[in-house]
């Protein structure tokens, strides 16, 4: 019998928006959005990968790229530099990532850096499909080469489409990939919208994956609740997942838009959702007053931080919050 349900909530001290893509100049591929932050720690800086978009094309369609911004390790609110180029090119004609590489999750592996990213293609009956690809960097995460032109985690028997939002982790020598998988397309006001859930796969080498085949997180706001950004963090003898969720309809609004949720697990497969403990929500005013989403929790120099998105799902950038409670989380 676990007593986690009675554990105190987290207390997050918001540090504000730290990166605003609209202030970046000279990069035609980076006009709006800094979505789905993911970190890689260096000696002097914290590199935050994010996904962004050039202006929409003549038909109003976007492509997405992934890139990074380096934050001063001594003061994470200070931007040192922004990537000169996207870390990955779009895919070749007809490939799964022809129209976007978003989001990306990064991990060190031996002397390389590996990226797991969602690749976007455009469909006729529904707007898009998504699968998860893999790329490696030999220059400390500045540029990446795809391991192949196809995905490493494609759609499958009971995960029929929209495999997205990868979060790569390694625990006790095993690779884990947390991601979202589409369940159905729901027609909302004449438009197909995907309904998806958080899933997991494991692997010995990070290339060949076995899917668990189970929804990890139960729904709360409605049966078709959309869940994303399953960010798993090991601390204080337990696995913790911060994720975001929203209604399936009218989700571009304050009332139905993204919020951040929380769950814990002892074995990575069975999760107990306790959103009441998450300790972070929308602000009364400002850049994160409408919605908050795409949490990523990381530890550096004895502090635990959450990077997250505000209004417009990152259209205006990402911000940081610092964990002010749970001092036991500060140690690895």
């Amino acid at each position, binding site marked *: 019998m676990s007593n986690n349900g009675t554990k105190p909530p987290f207390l997050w001290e918001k540090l504000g928006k730290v990166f605003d893509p609209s202030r970046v100049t000279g990069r035609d591929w980076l006009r709006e959005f800094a979505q789905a932050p993911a970190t890689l720690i260096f000696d002097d800086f914290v590199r935050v990968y994010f996904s962004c978009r050039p202006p929409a094309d003549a038909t109003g369609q976007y492509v997405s790229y992934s890139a990074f911004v380096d934050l001063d390790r001594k003061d994470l609110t200070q931007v040192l530099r922004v990537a000169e180029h996207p870390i990955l090119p779009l895919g070749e004609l007809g490939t799964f990532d022809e129209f976007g590489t978003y989001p990306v999750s990064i991990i060190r592996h031996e002397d390389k850096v590996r990226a797991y990213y969602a690749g976007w293609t455009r469909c006729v009956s529904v707007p898009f499909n998504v699968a998860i690809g893999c790329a490696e960097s030999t220059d400390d995460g500045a540029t990446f080469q795809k391991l192949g032109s*196809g995905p490493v985690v494609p759609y499958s*028997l*009971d995960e029929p489409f929209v495999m997205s939002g990868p979060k790569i982790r390694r625990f006790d020598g095993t690779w884990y990939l947390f991601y979202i998988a589409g369940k159905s397309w729901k027609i909302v006001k004449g438009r197909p919208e995907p309904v998806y859930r958080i899933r997991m796969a494991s692997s010995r080498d990070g290339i060949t994956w076995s899917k668990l085949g189970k929804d990890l997180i139960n729904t709360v706001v409605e049966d078709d609740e959309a869940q994303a950004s399953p960010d798993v963090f090991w601390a204080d003898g337990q696995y913790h997942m911060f994720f975001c969720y929203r209604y399936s309809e009218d989700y571009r609004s304050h009332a139905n838009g993204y919020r951040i949720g929380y769950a814990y697990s002892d074995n990575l497969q069975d999760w107990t959702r306790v959103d009441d403990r998450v300790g972070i929500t929308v602000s009364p005013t400002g850049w994160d007053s409408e919605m908050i989403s795409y949490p990523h929790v990381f530890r550096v120099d004895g502090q635990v931080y959450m990077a997250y998105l505000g209004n417009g799902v990152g259209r205006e950038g990402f911000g940081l919050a610092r964990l002010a409670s749970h001092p036991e989380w500060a140690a690895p």
Partner: protein
Amino acid sequence: MIIRKLGKVFDPADHTLPDNCREFAQSPQALEFEDFTRVYFCTRSVDPDGKTFRSHVSFADMEKDFSSVRRVAPKTVLPAGDLGTFDEHGVFPINVIRNEGQVWGYTCGWNRRVSVAVDTAVGLVVSDDDGETFRRIGPGPILGPSLHEPFLVGDAFVIRAMGVFHMWYMFGQRWKRENDTSQPDRVYKIGHAVSQDGIGWTKEDGVQILPDRLGSDECQALPSVLHFGERYHMVFCYRDVHGFRTDPGKGYRIGYAQSDDLVTWNRDDAALGFETEPGAWDAEMQCYPHLTLSSGEPYLLYNGNAFGRYGFGAAKLSLPEC
């Protein structure tokens, strides 16, 4: 090989098919019953826009020598896939086997794309009524793209041999345009996968098992494998990457390879001994071949001109005496 051609044995225009299908009987694939042989094929309905087609699974129960048709499918054999799924826009082809008291169908599901025409993946459908109707075992595919097979996985053909399931299938390598204003054309090859249960498959991932005859852009599709005369025989179809719809010199022909161990294949198209006569139903194109035993005798089923728009034919095979 000695080929005795039986001519076109099924014309969809002679029958009333379900799902408003009037033309096309593509990729004939056989399932033998006690006193007849069922030939599954894929036929097409026309979409409301009058321009695009949708492929449907159907069948004809035929005499064992393919001399006549007893009946055709009376109702929908496999319903359409759900919105956004890999087989939403049709199934073509389907390969059927008997397994564990059921009939299993390995489908090639089609879904339409924006920058290229389509993508495909392999699905599995199961029948509990001896192959009259099928249901999906899940909404997604059992075999789809991978690192080195980025798209167009399809055309599965499955046998059980040497203690495991073997699958030969098509995988895409690239899309390319003949010139700046052309629609993209696809290049695909034949690969091999194995499975313990027929559901979970291990691919070789990007390994082309047959050499090209028309250069690196040769398109190879629809493998079919049969054991007779103490070795394995494979037929498939191949064509040029561009111009194949209109130029008979670039269209589908039937290729052939032999193997003793299912690992090493020796391609020798001429050894099949397939010939056509000018003006015949199969003179301009030969495609979607299928090898099957009917009453213990090997037959080749295949489509002719226009990708099988007007039906399929049969030929009886025998090996030359040494």
